[in-house]
C-alpha cells in the first residue's frame, strides 16, 4: 500500500492508503481528524470544507494521491494556528452571534467563510452569499451572515 505524505495543520504526516481513497476518509478514518464532516461525499453539502494552501476545498472529492508532500492541509482543528491565536476571528464571531445549533455543518461553514472573506478582501455582499453553497439543515443561515460580516471587519 502506498505511503502518502503532506502537511496537516502545520505538521508533516505520513499515511498508508490506496491511491484513490478520498482525502476525507484519510483524515477521518485513518488519521482520526474528525472536524471535517461527511454530509454527502459529492462536493455538494460542503460539510467537509478544509483549506489547501490557504484555499477552500472539499476533501471528499480529492484523491489522496493528488495531494503533494508540500501541500498544506488545514482543517478546523488547525485554523486558529494559522493566525497564531487560540481562536480565529471567524470562530470568535461565531461565538459572539451564537451561530451554531446542532453544530454538524459549522466547521465547514467556518472554513468556507474564512476563504470567502479572504477572496473578497472584506465583508460579503448578497451576491457573495449566493456563492456559499454549504447546507445548514438547522437553518442558521441568518446568523452565519451576521457572523461572517462581523469577522470580516476584523480579519
Amino acid at each position, binding site marked *: 500500500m502506498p505511503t502518502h505524505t503532506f502537511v496537516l495543520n502545520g505538521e508533516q504526516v505520513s499515511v498508508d492508503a490506496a491511491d484513490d481513497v478520498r482525502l476525507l476518509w484519510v483524515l477521518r478514518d485513518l488519521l482520526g481528524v474528525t*472536524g471535517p464532516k461527511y454530509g454527502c*461525499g459529492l462536493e455538494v453539502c460542503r*460539510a467537509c470544507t478544509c483549506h489547501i494552501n490557504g484555499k477552500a476545498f472539499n476533501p471528499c472529492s480529492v484523491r489522496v494521491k493528488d495531494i503533494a508532500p508540500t501541500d498544506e492541509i488545514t482543517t478546523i482543528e488547525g485554523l486558529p494556528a494559522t493566525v497564531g491565536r487560540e*481562536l480565529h476571528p471567524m470562530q470568535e464571531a*461565531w461565538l459572539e452571534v451564537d451561530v451554531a*445549533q446542532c453544530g454538524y455543518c459549522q466547521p465547514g461553514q467556518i472554513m468556507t467563510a474564512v476563504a470567502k472573506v479572504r477572496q473578497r478582501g472584506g465583508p460579503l455582499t448578497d451576491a457573495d452569499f449566493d456563492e456559499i453553497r*454549504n447546507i445548514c*439543515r438547522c437553518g442558521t443561515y441568518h446568523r452565519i451572515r451576521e457572523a461572517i460580516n462581523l469577522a470580516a471587519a476584523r480579519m
Partner: protein
Amino acid sequence: MPAARRTGQEVSRRGFLGWVVAAPTLLVAAPLAAAAVKPDGAGAAIPGVPEPGDLYDLSDLLTDATLPTAMLVTVGVNQHGTVSYALPRAEVGQGLTTAVAMIIADELDVPIEQVDVTLSDARPELVWNQITGGSNSVHSLYTPLRTAAALARDRLVAAAAAKWSIAPAKLTTRAGAVHGPRGRSASYGSLSRDAAAPRTTAHRVTLKPASAQRVIGGAQSRIDALDAVTGRKRFAMDLHVPGALPTMICRAPVINGKVQSVGNLAAVRAMPGVTDVGVVSSGVAVRARTFGQCIDAVRALKVNWKGGTVDGESDATVLAKLKKAEIPLLVPRVPLLAKTVEGSFTFYFRSNSPLETNCAVADVRADSAEIWAGLKNPIVTQQTVAQNLGMRQNQVKVHVVQSGGSFGRHLFSDVVYEAAEVSQLFGKPVKLMWHRTDDFRHGRTHPMCTSRVRATVLGGNVLTYEQRHTSVATDWTHGFGEMLTAMAAKLPGGNLTYAETIFALSQVVNYNYGVTTQLINEIFNYDDFHTGAMRNVYSPDVCTAQELITDKLAKAVGKDPYAFRQAFVKDARMKAVLTKLGAAGNWGRAMPAGTAQGIGLHSEYKSRIGALVEIDCRPVTVNRQLADSYTGPRVTKVVIVVDVGLTINRRGLAAQMQGGAMDGIAQTLTSSLHLQNGIFKEGSWDNYYYTRQWNVPPKVQVVIMPDTTAAPGGAGELAAGVTQAAVACAYARATGAMPTEFPINHNQPLGFVPLPTVPPIPQSPTDGLAHTF
C-alpha cells in the same frame, strides 16, 4: 434581565417535594411532578379519552406520561463544585442542554459554566420519561429540575449553617457559594460532603419566586458552542470505538426491497480494504478500512433484488389513493344564502434527513451488546436490539450521543438495528453510516397528504369550518418511549388510533368559525413507506390549508387578512401576538406589483405564534440564474412573533424560530421528494432543495412576547408550520392565485438528472482541486 420581569405571574410558592438521595456527596432527586402539579395525584400514565386539543393537548399527554418517573432524575453537586445532571433526553441541536443548564444554574445560584449536562444512557426504569419529541422537553422538566436544584441549595445552606453555627436564614447563596456575615463564604464543592445524606429522605422545598430569577429568561449562548466551532463536538460518526470499522449497506432500487441473491460476494470481499461482506435484512453489508472503500464495495456488488412494498407507486398513484380515502365533507345545514369557501391542497413527501446521515456504532459480543447513536427514544431502542439479538434487555447497553440534527428522524433507530444485526453477523464492532443518497431515498419522510377544507360564511360571520386531512400513514410505532405503547401502534388498527389521537390533541382552529370539525384518515400500512414526524406531523400542512382558507374567507366578507384575523381570532394571547405582528411587520405597507405580504397564526404546545412574511414573485427574481441552484420566488423578509408562555433562553428561542422559518420557506417553495415506481428521485442536497443561502430572506426578525404563563411551552417545532402558511398566503396574494400543491415547484419540470438506483450510491468526484477558492 430586570428583576421583576414577571410580577403578577408568580409561580405558586407552595411546597414541592424532593429527595436527598443516599450518596457520599450531595445528590438530590427531582420530585414526582404529580405531587406538585396535581395535588389529587391522578396516577394514570396515559389518559384514556383525551379532551379536544385546546383543553388537553399533546404537551399534557407527554407530560402526564412522564409523571410517574420524574423523581428518578437526579442532580449531583460534586466536590470540585460542578453540578452534574444526566439528561434523559436527546440534544439534536435544539439547545435543550443549554436550557436545562440555565434552569439549574438559576435555582441553585451557580454559574452556568459549572453545570455539566450529559446525555443519559438508556434507563429502562424511566419507562415513559426518556423520549424527546412533541417539543415537550422543557415543558416536562422545568418544575422537576427546579425542585431538585432548590433542594440542593437548601442542603448546602444547611451544611454551611451547621459548620458556622449560624441560623440558615442569615445565609445567602450566589455564584456557587454560600455566603454568611462578615464576608464569610464556602463554595458548594467544599460543602458537598457535609450536605450529603447517609439515607434517602424526602424534603419540602420552596422554589424561587419568578422575580428572583436571574438566568431564566436571559439570552444565553449555547453551552456547546465552543466545541461546535472548534470541531471538538463529537457525533456518533466521530467516535473512536476500538475495532469499529466503517460499514455501509448496499440497498435496493425500491423502498423495502430485499436481497434475492448476490453474484460476487467473494470478489467484493477481496477488494482493497474490505474486511467483511454479508447479506442482512436491509441489503448487503460491507465493512472496510475506510468509508471510501465501503462506497467502492457497495458499488461493485452484483445483487438480484426482490420487490419492495410500494413498487408500483408514484406521486400520481398515491395522490389518487389519498383522494379516494378522504372522509367526505358534510353538507352543512346553513341558510340558502350562505356562501361556500373551499379548497383542496396536496402536500408531497418531504425528507426529514438531518445533515448528519443515519449512523450508529455497535459492538455485539456473544453475551452482550453496546450501542452508540443519536437517539430520541433509547429505551425502545434497547428493548428492540435485545429482542433482535436474542438477548435480555440488561445485556444491551445503549449510549445516547449528540446528533447532527433530527427534525423527527431520531425518534426511530433504524440504523441501530442494522448496525447490531451487522455486528452480530460479522462478529466484529462496526460503525455503520448511511450514504447521503440512501438517506434521502430510504430514510424516513414526512408522508404525502391532502387537506380539504370547506367553510360557509353569511353576513360577515363564518358559520361552519370543516377540514379533512388524509395522509399516507405516519409511523407511530415509536410509541411514548417504551415497548408497550410502541407495540400498541403495531396492532391492527393501532397506528390509525394513534394518528387519530395525536391529530385530535394537536390540531386546533384558531378562529371563531362556528361549527368546526377536523378529521383524519390514513392509507397504506405504517411500514409500507418509511415515515415519521418532520418538525411536526400534521400541523404545518393543516395550518397552511387553514390560513389559505382564512384569507379566502376574509376576501369573501370584504376584509383585509389582518383585520379579518383580528375580528375572528379566538384567544387573548393569540390576539396580542397578532397585534404585535402587524406593528412589527408593518402590515399593509405599499408594495410593488408581484410582491406581497402574508400572515399566518398557529397555536400548539401551550404556545402562540404568528409569522408575517414578504415575498417577491416578480420574473426578475423568480428567474435568477445560479448554477445547480433552485431559486424561484424569494421570501425577502420574515417577522416572527412568539409567546411561549415562559421563555427560558431568549437566544435559543430566537434560533429555533429562525430555523423553523427556513423550514417553512422550503416546504412551501422548494423542497420535496418525487416518488417514481417505488423510489424517490432525489439523492443529493442539489436535488432536494432545502433552503440555501440564495433562498434566505435578507431580513429575519424574531419578537419574543413578555411571559404570559408560569410554565414554558414548546418551541422546537413551532415556527416551521406558521412560516409555511404565511409564505403560502403571501404567494397567493402576490400572484393572485391560491397555491394548492406544496411545494409549489413540485410539478414543474425536474431541475436535476436523478442519480441511478443501481448501483444505489454515486461515486465521489475526483476533481475537487479544480474548484478551490
